[in-house]
């Protein structure tokens, strides 16, 4: 799944390589929203690269505090830098969000399945992100834009609660400035100075330009948003096999062993987090499973 490393990687061989945290140093911290920060890190020990595939996640350790699963949000073509966008919601994430240049983070991974960026070549690509869901999609967007000729239309749809809650604001503007990709941004509520769209993501699906039978949709966001987005995409004629969703559950090991991330027959951490919608459709909308 992960690209073949060209340089020595920072990872130990399995099983220790997956059980023990590798040391990374924070290079910089960038504030995205009131409670969300992006850390850029580089390996602290031997090795200099951390190859990953778009969509995969790492387990990040705040030493002595705890470990949390965080999707990788950097560029897969730049494995020498590890980038994670983290929302401060619990003890470990709050600690990670306070780290500054030179601080240490433990990293295990990368874990999980990837966005089907290879398989989607020759198709239109529709990215649908909600809130923090843009973070796990960003590596796939980087890949698609770096390999622009391989795809048809590229539509990036991003919904957030308000303009203040949007991630990667400047970068979105940059993508929007390209002549070969369309970016649709919409928020639920906005102050008068907001010049963008107000309304839910699902409404934008109807306006995006893509050829449904030849489209691959990649989606990540809150459950409610994904449920209605899937409906919107299917109503336009996108096949459930071509709709990919990134799922979230309690994850503690990343190895499919601790049992917390089960969704019916699948373990989100090792069978996912990225699934073709067709694979989990029977479980997607079931309650309390």
């Amino acid at each position, binding site marked *: 799944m992960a690209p073949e490393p060209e340089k020595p990687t920072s990872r130990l061989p*399995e*099983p*220790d390589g*997956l*059980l*023990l*945290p590798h*040391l990374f140093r924070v290079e910089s911290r960038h504030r995205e929203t009131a409670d969300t920060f992006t850390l850029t890190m580089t390996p*602290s020990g031997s090795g200099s690269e951390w190859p990953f595939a778009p969509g995969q996640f790492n387990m990040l*350790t*705040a*030493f*002595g*505090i*705890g*470990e949390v699963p965080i999707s990788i949000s950097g560029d897969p073509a730049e494995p020498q830098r590890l980038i994670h966008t983290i*929302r401060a*919601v*619990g003890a*470990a994430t709050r600690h990670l969000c306070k780290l500054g240049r*030179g601080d*240490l983070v*433990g990293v295990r991974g990368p874990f999980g399945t990837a966005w089907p960026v290879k398989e989607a070549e020759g198709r239109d690509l529709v990215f649908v992100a909600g809130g923090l869901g843009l973070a796990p999609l960003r590596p796939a967007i980087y890949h698609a834009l770096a390999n622009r000729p391989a795809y048809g239309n590229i539509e990036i749809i991003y919904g957030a609660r308000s303009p203040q809650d949007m991630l990667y604001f400047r970068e979105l503007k940059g993508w929007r400035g390209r002549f070969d990709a369309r970016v649709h941004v919409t928020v639920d509520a906005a102050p008068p100075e907001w010049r963008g769209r107000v309304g839910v993501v699902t409404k934008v699906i109807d306006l995006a330009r893509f050829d449904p039978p030849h489209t691959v949709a990649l989606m990540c966001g809150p459950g409610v948003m994904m449920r209605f987005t899937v409906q919107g995409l299917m109503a336009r004629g996108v096949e459930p096999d071509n709709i990919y969703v990134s799922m*979230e*559950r*309690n994850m*503690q*090991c990343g*190895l*499919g*062993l*601790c*049992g*917390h991330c*089960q969704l*019916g*027959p*699948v*373990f989100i951490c*090792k069978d996912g987090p990225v699934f073709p919608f067709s694979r989990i459709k*029977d479980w997607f909308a*079931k*309650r*309390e*499973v």
Partner: protein
Amino acid sequence: MDNSFIIEAPQLQQLIEVLQSQGYGVLGPTLRQDDLVYDEVRATADLPVGWLDEHEAGSFRLIRGEAQTFFGCLVGQHSWKQFLFPSNLRLWQAQQQENSWQVNAFTDEEPPYAFLGVRACDLAALEVHDRTFARGRHPDPVYQGRRGKAFIVAVNCTRSAATCFCASLGTGPKATSGFDLALTEVMEKGNHYFLVKAGTKRGTAVLNSLTHRPATKAEVAAAEGLVAGAARSQSRSLEIEGLQEFLYNNFENPHWDRVVERCLTCGNCAITCPTCFCHDIQDRIDVTGEVAERWRHWEVCFSVDHSYIHGGAIRPSPRSRYRQWLTHKLATWVDQFGCLGCIGCGRCITWCPVGIDLIQEVRGLKAAAVEAAAGETQKSTGEKTHGNH
């Protein structure tokens, strides 16, 4: 039977000694504070000699048997998973050094184990755990290491408890594979001996260092008869034909509500279950702030925190948690690992403080589904009748 041998009852001590001399830590059933547990067995006297276990839903009693058998007790609340998948395990320790951390991996210092007295159902449980911890994409090195070295002495069951249902699942009462040695304890007509089969070269080597002789046909028949009798005496059985599909179609079955009128969500069933594998991972730090550790602890899907993600739990209701446990054991497990998560030992029935019985609950679910279907038919027939008038 050319591959069956007899060792006389006193030679069991010899078996323990041979295993000890080969460096094994011998573990088996023993009594501790009047409870049946698995622990170190230094000599045959440590075994629960002459005791029998009586099981019912929510009830466990040890009683004196008439015969001085070594393996009269079947299964207690312990299972062998506690040795291969310990309930508390430190995965690593990290020491702060100036501006960095030195991470030290866990090194397993346990001696190789010899499990003495593994029942057929528990052999099946080991096989189930092998699929989870040893044969998956990411094996657990601790389990793998201990399991690979473990010497297994199985003991065939010559009696069944009221809660046993291995015969209906095909996992017992006879051990058919997965052992180094398999014993059948026979005590009749004043004779007390073990019929022994070796399942591996390692097992044969140990057998060869014991005083033993080939078994006669009569001795083999006597042992087989006892095991067959144990199978026949089982009153509980789990009908697994079509069960997975049935459970997948019964997430909203009204019987779930009836179970949780009783279920305390204590998780005893999952803790005593020899195949339940869920665990928590917790980090801690010492008072100096210089030593960080990561621990692994058994955890159960009956806790609300089990499904917690920021914002709340996925399964807040007891109903959804019992449903998760039962559906995992009997349905999703099959998709995950290609086998049932239940091996028919009956521990979850015995150790449930309110006597919830998995067999009965499956029956209850099926009955409720039949009732609901009958209701539907009645409704549609009623409408038709009405339409005809």
